[in-house]
């Protein structure tokens, strides 16, 4: 293991993280809920009365973020290396896994750890470890197969 100092962006990471934290903070202080994206989105698939507008609004806010950002600054480049088949498999796994596991990087990783929830701390350790292991297998073991 060696650190890629050229890719390391500590300032934007900390600032961006603080902005994410501020959004989660505003959400709990105003709406009284955990800003967990998988749960908020998933709830829209089983719509209940009075439970749709705030969910749809949060989702719309996330989708509108590049538009808002792009109005003030040049959007940073993004790169997706995975091909279509891998994207479909990955999406299915993320969709199923986050719902059975009751959360994702936002709900467990940001909000749950902020709340010191034991469930979220365990979930975050598990999905991080699985992510590290998956990239290790995909990038270093299967290479050249």
């Amino acid at each position, binding site marked *: 293991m060696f650190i890629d100092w050229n890719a390391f962006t500590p300032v934007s990471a900390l600032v*961006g993280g603080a902005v*994410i934290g501020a959004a989660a903070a505003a959400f709990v202080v105003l709406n009284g809920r955990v800003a967990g994206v998988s749960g908020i989105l998933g709830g829209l698939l089983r719509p209940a009365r009075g439970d749709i507008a705030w969910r749809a609004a949060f989702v719309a806010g996330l989708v*509108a973020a590049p538009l808002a950002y792009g109005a003030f600054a040049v959007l940073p480049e993004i*790169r997706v290396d995975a091909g279509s088949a891998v994207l479909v498999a990955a999406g*299915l796994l993320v969709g199923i896994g986050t719902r059975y596991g*009751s959360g994702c*990087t936002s709900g467990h990783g940001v909000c749950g750890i902020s709340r010191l929830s034991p469930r979220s701390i365990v979930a975050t350790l598990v999905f991080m470890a699985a992510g590290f292991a998956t990239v290790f297998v995909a990038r270093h073991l299967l290479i050249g197969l």
Partner: protein
Amino acid sequence: MYAAASFLAGLVFGVGLIVAGMANPAKVIGFLDLAGAWDPSLALVMAGAITVGAGAFALMRNKTRTLLGAPVRLPTARNIDRPLILGSLVFGVGWGLAGICPGPALVLAGYGAIKGLVFLAAMLAGSALFEFQEGRKRRLSAGE
């Protein structure tokens, strides 16, 4: 009112993801690639987010109403069970394969990235599969 606050929170959350680099799948993979050229940035994203978030959650922990008068509905489950572990494991594998988790999937869709839309469609299908399975379980346990 709640919906407006919700929209703003989602918008700010998404802007944070873009600033942090979390919306860029290649950067996420760079963080998850411990054995390669490791980019530790995303650890600082988490640190920044938790530092700011922790105060707000501590403030709301014993409250029943929010500033807007909405009921506080924070998760109460405390048991570490099989669905939590297995679900998180499955999620982590998917996250490692593409470098995309649910928040960034929505932001990528907003970028108009075709690959982001493909991932998002599959993710919604996975989530729908969960709802279908849970609905069936509920009907079965209701004694039909």
